[in-house]
């Protein structure tokens, strides 16, 4: 009887000495079993010669680095992105309010000379009030109340005209002061609107991310 079932173990030198001697004795007399053994040997060699597949990444866990380092890198990644976003956002905010205030300030200044010319005898006050776009509202209001207290009738008529002519500029100043008020209230946090702050933070977080990444890659 052919010892087919033992041929692989014989090939692998995994038989007991008695079994091996028995198979060897049979092989000496059986060409078929020698052929089978050669086929199995060739098969084993082919299996051993298969090309070595390569992993696409390192599979060794970096157990020598602190466990918090990987989460910290993740944090640094997101923080870098967030800081970059805030940098862009604050840069946009810092640019557009300036353009907006410039346009609102230009509008009363342009309308003012026409109103002053309509005041006639108050020509000297006209250009002055036309130029008083920037003074804050309280100053204008106190001027107005002082003038009203000591005004002659003719002066009062002029004053009414002045008030009318000064109206747009005063309103503009009040608008500006109203606009400025919230900014003045949030002054302690105004630095948050600085693009430079976020740019510096973005660079700092990116540097942190880079350093941690190198540490994680090293073994």
């Amino acid at each position: 009887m052919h010892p087919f079932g033992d041929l692989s173990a014989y090939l692998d030198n995994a038989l007991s000495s008695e079994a091996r001697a028995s198979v060897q004795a049979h092989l000496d007399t059986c060409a078929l079993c020698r052929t089978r053994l050669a086929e199995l040997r060739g098969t084993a060699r082919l299996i051993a010669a298969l090309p070595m597949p390569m992993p696409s990444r390192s599979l060794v866990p970096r157990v020598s680095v602190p466990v918090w380092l990987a989460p910290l890198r993740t944090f640094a990644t997101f923080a870098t992105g967030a800081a970059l976003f805030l940098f862009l956002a604050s840069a946009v905010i810092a640019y557009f309010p300036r353009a907006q205030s410039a346009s609102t300030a230009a509008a009363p200044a342009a309308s003012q000379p026409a109103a002053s010319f309509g005041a006639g005898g108050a020509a000297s006050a006209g250009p002055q009030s036309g130029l008083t776009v920037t003074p804050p509202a309280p100053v204008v209001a106190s001027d107005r109340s002082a003038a009203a207290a000591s005004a002659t009738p003719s002066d009062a008529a002029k004053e009414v005209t002045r008030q009318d002519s000064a109206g747009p500029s005063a309103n503009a100043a009040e608008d500006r002061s109203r606009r400025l008020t919230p900014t003045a209230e949030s002054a302690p946090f105004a630095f948050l609107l600085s693009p430079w702050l976020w740019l510096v933070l973005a660079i700092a977080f990116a540097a942190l991310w880079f350093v941690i990444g190198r540490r994680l890659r090293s073994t």
Partner: protein
Amino acid sequence: MRPEPGRASDALLDRARNGDARAFEQLALDIERPLYRHAARMLGHDDAEDVVQDALLSAWKSLATFEGTSFRAWVFRIVTNRALDRLRSRKRRPELPLDPPSESDDSVSWAEPVAPGPELADLAADREALRVVEDALATIPADQRAALLLRDVEGFAYDEIAIITSTEIGTVKSRIHRGRVAVRNVLISRGWKGSSG
């Protein structure tokens, strides 16, 4: 079996057991590619990477409980078990049983050559032959594939494979023989023949 790298490896193992993470990483680096090779041929590329990474992390966590002398065989055991578990859970109805019904190894069918062809021993450099071998390996039961790869590729002895696959040495002998004959049959059916030497 291929010998362990030697005393340097033993020293690394001692240091790793004592909590030296860098020593463990060096040990793992030495067997990373063979582990991946084994897992990839058991599972395919994507799952193999996950299995090897998880197995190495598990090995690090349980290194204190490892009492054997062969770190390589121990990690191969973890990888093989995880690969077989994943294969079992991959399909509710496996195309091939992990362990086919038992029959005598002497009754394993041997395909006959259909036509004269090149000798198997001369085909190690033939890409076509190697592709046929890879395809054939993919069609045999996973338990046979694991045992055959551990023997023919990784060079483990039968008793080591018995420990790695948590089975009897007689079962290892049977799996290797059946798997090898199955691959041989595929090659023979493709027109190749073995030398009679």
